[in-house]
């Protein structure tokens, strides 16, 4: 973990409200694991923003970001050549378990799984979204061993339905599931995994202040009591998380 500065190599829109930041930051790129995140400065804002590292090579990292509030809107406009303070890599990433990996990414949640997919090399990766226009996964160059599938709520591409419905139809013995997405999706998946006796891990997102585990701003309830998303997570065993 290191505090340093990242040079913005590129900033590309992927969909109407999703964009991709490519950052030169070798100190962080070298050691990052799938599911870990960085805490990134947003010029003019009091707090940093946590983003999972969506991809990495030896020199650079890629972040896939959804424009949600004023901070991410400011980042969407950041220009190539800018330099941003950055802390990372942070948190616990995925630790693959026995079984054929099935990655389920709902919307921007898929960004938490792409580096895992690269590091696994061989896996099935299904991205879900409301419609085909919101599916951006193809814009990242994933290894050939990653079989990509789609689930859209309007049926415009791939499986017709959301990822919980997809999982209900496709969770078979022998799978290990890694997932990230909106809370109702993860909560639905948790129930399915329990029913079918499958192991899985979820990456959670939270508002954060320190990003390091010091301020207790990002805690979520788990079976072991409160857990800090930034330090004890962001990746948790699927059955550990307590959804409201």
């Amino acid at each position, binding site marked *: *973990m290191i*505090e340093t500065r990242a040079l913005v190599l590129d900033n590309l829109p992927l969909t109407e409200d999703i964009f991709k930041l490519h950052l030169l930051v070798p100190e962080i790129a070298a050691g990052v694991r799938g599911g870990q995140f960085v805490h990134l*400065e947003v010029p003019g*804002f*009091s*707090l*940093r923003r946590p983003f999972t590292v969506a991809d990495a090579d030896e020199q650079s990292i890629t972040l896939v970001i959804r424009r949600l509030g004023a*901070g991410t809107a400011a980042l969407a406009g950041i220009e190539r050549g800018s330099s941003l*303070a950055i*802390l990372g890599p942070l948190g616990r990433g995925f630790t693959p378990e026995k079984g054929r990996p099935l990655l389920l990414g709902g919307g921007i949640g898929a960004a938490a799984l792409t580096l895992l997919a690269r590091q696994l090399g061989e896996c099935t990766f299904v991205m879900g979204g409301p419609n085909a226009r919101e599916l951006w996964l193809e814009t990242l160059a994933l290894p050939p061993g990653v079989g990509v599938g789609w689930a859209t709520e309007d049926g415009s591409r791939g499986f017709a339905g959301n990822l919980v419905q997809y999982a209900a139809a496709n969770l078979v013995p022998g799978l290990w599931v890694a997932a990230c997405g909106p809370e109702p999706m993860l909560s639905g998946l948790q129930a399915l995994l329990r029913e079918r006796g499958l192991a899985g891990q979820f990456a959670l997102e*939270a*508002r*954060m*202040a*320190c*990003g*390091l*585990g*010091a*301020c*207790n*701003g*990002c*805690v*979520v309830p788990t079976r072991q*009591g*409160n857990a800090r998303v930034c*330090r004890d997570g962001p990746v948790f065993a699927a059955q550990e998380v307590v959804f409201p």
Partner: protein
Amino acid sequence: MNRAAADLGFARLKNPFMPASGCFGWGREYSRLFALDTLGAVVTKAVTPEPRRGNPGPRLAETPAGMLNAIGLENSGLEGALRDDLPWLQGQGVPILVNVAGRTPEEYARVAEALADQDLLGLELNLSCPNVREGGIAFGVDPDLVYALVSRVGEVCPLPLVVKLTPNLADIVEPALAAQAAGARALTLINTLRGLAIDSKKRRPLLGNISGGLSGPAIKPVALYQVWQAYRAVSIPIIGCGGIAGVEDALEFLLAGAAALQVGSAAFANPLVLPQLVRGLADWLVTNDTTVSELVGEAHRGREV
């Protein structure tokens, strides 16, 4: 000569900088980024007699020039602090102020008594948390309660007591005087200002606790004013806190009368802000051929205190 030395009366720190309670945990996480003995002191997360789960989320909201937090004193309790956290921090070679909180004066006394024979710089009594229903702020706004609580803790604990007061009142002077009269050796001014954020999409308060404590650059003028006012009223040293993020901010607080300085949410924007302030102030003092002691309260000079 150490130009940056900060005089708290009961102790001399190598520089005036310490983290504000709650923003720094027990320092473990930040010790991965810099050596804690760089700092004048470390102020710990609040310790209550029993473990507390804190408030439901969300606990954080960004605001213009600051943030709201509503953590709610989540901590592992006195036993956890004595077993897991304090021994670790005592090995870091930095003076320690343990922040103490409770629901009743007896709860403060219980924690203070259990810490009485520990090797500590002192205790910081948190009479000002805006995010818990009982205790905290309720004590800090009533001078009689401040007096009673600080006296009670003083009976069971010989360690120097620093009293952290709330800015959520009309006049800081009365509780400040009450703390001094009860034997406080220093004051910390200020804790966060109570505030609210609304999520307009959900049409509900954003924070799980409804209200939160405002910190950051937004509260600096309020903090400076209260330090200024208290400096004119009390004779014990004041630890200034509220929106300090750069050397210029630090100078302003020293000039207004703060003898030492706490840095809170600025560390979220820049995790290295504390060691950078230590270095930055040291350089400034050399360039300007002065010392921290010369600066403290300098802005009052020529005015009758």
